[in-house]
C-alpha cells in the first residue's frame, strides 16, 4: 500500500506522465482516500502554473544585442554579394 511519503516521491512523475500503469493505479487508489495528498497534488500543479506565469525579466541590453545582430546580417549580405555569380 502506497504511503503519503511514497506518493510525494512519485508526484513529479505523475505530473509528467512518467508512471507505469501499475504505479498510476496505486497512486489513484491512494488519492481516492487521502485528502491531504489530493491537496498536495492539486497545489503542486498550481505551483507548476505559477512558474509558467511568473513574469519574464526584461532582456538585458536588448539594443546592443539587436545592433550586433543587424551588423551580422549586413556582413552576411556583403558576403553573399561577393559569393554571387560574377
Amino acid at each position, binding site marked *: 500500500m502506497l*504511503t*503519503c*511519503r*511514497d506518493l*510525494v*516521491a512519485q*508526484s*513529479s*512523475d505523475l*505530473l*509528467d506522465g*512518467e508512471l507505469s500503469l501499475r504505479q498510476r493505479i496505486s497512486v489513484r487508489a491512494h488519492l481516492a482516500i487521502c485528502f*491531504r*495528498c489530493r*491537496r*498536495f497534488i*492539486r*497545489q*503542486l500543479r*498550481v*505551483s*507548476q*502554473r*505559477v*512558474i*509558467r*506565469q*511568473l*513574469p*519574464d*525579466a526584461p*532582456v*538585458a541590453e*536588448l539594443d546592443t*544585442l*539587436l545592433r*550586433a*545582430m*543587424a551588423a*551580422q*546580417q549586413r556582413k*552576411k*549580405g556583403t558576403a553573399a554579394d561577393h559569393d554571387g555569380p560574377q
Partner: protein
Amino acid sequence: MTEEQLLAGLRAGHQAAYAALVTQYQGAMRAVAIAIVGSSSADEVVQDSWLAVVRNIDGFAERSSLKTWLLTITANTAKTRLKKQRREVFIDDLRGPHGSIDNDRFQPDGHWQQGPAGWHSDSPEALLDAQELRDCLEHTLSSLSELQRSVLLLRDRQCLELEEICNLLDISHSNVRVLLHRARLSVFATLEHFEVTGEC
C-alpha cells in the same frame, strides 16, 4: 506575430522580427546556456547563439519548431565553449530557502505528520498578485543549483518534453526527473511558506 510571419521577417532581416524573437526566446536560451556552461559565461553564449541564428536562418528547414532549432543552436554553442570537456552532472541537493517536502513532514509509517497547508487560492494569477511572492519565488529560483533551475524552467515554464531536455543538456532521463522533482518541491515549499506566513 505567428511563427511564419516571424520567419519571413527574420529572413528579410527586419529589426522588429529580431526584437520579437529575442524577447520571446531569450529566457529559454539562457536556461539552456546556464545548464551547460554556468551563469558566468551564459550571457556570452546566448549572444553568440543569436549571431549564429542570424548567420544560419536561411538554412532553417522547418523540420523542427523554431524554438527547438534555437535551443539546439544554443546548446551546441555552449558545448563548443566547453571544448568537449565533459562536465560531471552533479545531482546536488541544494535546499531552497524554505526547504522542501522532506522526511520530517512524515510520520515513521509514511503518513503526513504535517499535511500541506491550504492556500488562499488555486489561481496562479491570484497568487502572483503579490509582488512580494514574485520576488520570493525569484529568490528561491536563484538559490537552486544552475542545473536544477534550468531543468525546472525548461520543463514548467517553456513546456519542453523531458526527452528534449535530456538531448539538449546531455543528461540522462532519470537525472532530469530527479532535478525536476527537487526543484518543484523547493518551489512548492516557498509557496506554502508564503501562504502560511505572508512573508518570504
